[in-house]
């Protein structure tokens, strides 16, 4: 595939320029995972109140973050934080993140990191700004999901999520998405369509919360641990399934035991990925982004042969690693 070749060529040029390998500091091989946790342990760690949240991560990873507010239509949603910041060695980027609180007051003010439609519409506005000014886009995902209240329904939660995903699909600028903690369903995906999608080692990303799945499928909320196992929502599962491209290692006790080290690892990963993607022609990037999602999923087609999930690494992960 010539897109792959062109992108890999770009990568080699970057390497010979003295840059570090793009996957430096990332776990892209499951065998390299030293700590093994159960999915349920990951769920607990991902939701840990003291886990570094988006604003703390933004302030640690980027310089001179200037927050930008508002959706130009209804409200500034504090559950979504976005703006422009400097990324060391790269230059200005646009950052969009979900922000959950570390205290009860902050959680109430930010609706526990559950965006309203206007939060997604603010995100879309900032995506378009990134595109207009050719700034790479970095998103940080950390949400239990989109806010499920009646006002959110009335103002078009579904429409806002759909448009956010659609906008990211065609956005003419590089996108790096990082799942920091909890990636809750469509409310997370609407910030997580990217050229490269990374996850922290103990992050989770799921189509439904384990509690929700337990209530529906096991008819008992107490079976959440069982559901967490079945849903394959842990970062290591997501890596294996080709949903994320690499894991950012956390300290042995979890990210909250050493925020500074965690944030340093996030910074290393983001710098490498944004730097690499910035060297790829935008048309190639958009083709690869389309293909990245195009090939996720497992279908069986008896007459035309079987097309199950790729047993080897998907090509976009090879692109990322430059091999």
């Amino acid at each position, binding site marked *: 595939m010539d897109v792959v070749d062109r992108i890999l060529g770009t990568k080699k040029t970057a390497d010979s320029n003295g840059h570090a390998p793009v996957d430096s500091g990332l776990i892209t091989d499951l065998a390299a995972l030293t700590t093994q946790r159960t999915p349920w342990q990951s769920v607990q760690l991902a939701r840990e109140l003291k886990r570094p949240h988006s604003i703390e991560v933004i302030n640690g990873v980027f310089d001179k973050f200037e927050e930008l507010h508002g959706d130009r239509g209804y409200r500034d949603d504090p559950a979504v934080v976005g703006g422009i910041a400097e990324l060391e060695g790269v230059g200005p980027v646009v950052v969009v993140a979900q922000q959950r609180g570390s205290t009860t007051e902050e959680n109430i003010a930010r609706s526990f990191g559950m965006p309203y439609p206007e939060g997604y519409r603010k995100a879309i506005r900032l995506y378009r700004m990134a595109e207009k000014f050719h700034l790479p886009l970095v998103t940080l995902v950390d949400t239990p999901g*989109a*806010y*499920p*209240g*009646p006002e*959110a*329904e*009335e*103002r*078009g*939660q*579904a*429409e806002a*999520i*759909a*448009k956010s*995903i*659609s906008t*990211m*699909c*065609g956005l003419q600028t590089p996108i790096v998405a990082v799942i920091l903690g909890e990636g809750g*369903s*469509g409310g997370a*995906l*609407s910030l997580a*369509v990217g050229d490269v999608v990374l996850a922290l080692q103990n992050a989770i*990303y*799921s*189509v*439904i919360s384990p509690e929700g*799945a337990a209530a*529906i*499928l*096991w008819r008992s909320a107490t079976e959440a641990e069982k*559901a967490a196992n*079945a*849903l*394959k*929502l842990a970062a290591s599962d*997501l890596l294996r*399934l080709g*949903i994320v491209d690499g894991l950012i290692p956390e300290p042995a006790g979890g990210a909250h035991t050493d925020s500074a080290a965690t944030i340093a690892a996030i910074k290393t990963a983001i710098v490498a990925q944004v730097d690499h993607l910035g060297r790829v022609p935008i048309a190639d990037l958009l083709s690869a*982004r*389309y293909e990245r*999602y*195009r090939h*996720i*999923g*497992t*279908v*069986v*087609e*008896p*007459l035309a042969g079987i097309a*199950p*999930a790729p047993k080897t690494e998907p090509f976009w992960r090879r692109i990322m690693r430059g091999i």
Partner: protein
Amino acid sequence: MPFGRQRKEFPSHLWTQCPTCAEMLFNKQLARNNMVCTKCEHHFRLGARERIELLADKGSFTEHDVDLTSGDPLGFTDQKPYPQRIQQSQAKSGEKDAAICGTVRIDENQVELAVMDFDFMGGSMGSVVGEKLTRAGERALANRTPLIIVSSSGGARMQEGTLSLMQMAKILGALHRLDEAGLPYVSVVTDPTTGGVLASFASLGDIILAEPNALIGFSGARVTSETIGEKLPKGFQRAEFVLAHGFVDQVVPRAQLRERLAYFLNAFRPSARDLRWSL
């Protein structure tokens, strides 16, 4: 049906009671009226094959991707294994999964038509639905024809976990290409359309049509109600409510759906004029 006497007089394989006006409806007549109550116009759910029959020019339907079936990528088991659920649904419905796709003509316009089937695991969207809808979008792009998707779904299929979630991005990627090529996409939203289906392709049509009283919402009303701990407004998440809030273009009675689609397809058909405009 509160009375035993009624039950005997109206055996359920012959009669259905309308939940809106309580009229007892003769099943054959109900089917002949496209599952719309002949007394009060209550819209019952319509099967995917019947929907295609209703919309397509007679004999114009060519089905695609007939034999695409689901894998079990997660080895998922809840109260029974996922492959067993699939097999049971296939046996019960006679369909391979929750979407049927094909090329049709509607009032002489060639169109890619995809119809979701709520009877198959609640119309849930896993890899097969994602793949079939994406291919329908890609065929529309390749043939430069419009795309129509008729939604009816509880949302993403839990048994394929995050892979189901990714189908939203996969389908929207294809729809985005269709949009950039200037091709029409019409979304028809029927009862019920919720969750990840509403939060992706169902909400983004150039034209969005809904059926009367269809349940249309992102979060289940139960979840929403629990969130605020109070009763929801009247008509909440029904088609007319969603219309008033600005998210669908029209609520169209089923009897008029075919002609309405034909109208928009004809209006959006490129004319000779367009060539001059591109000068």
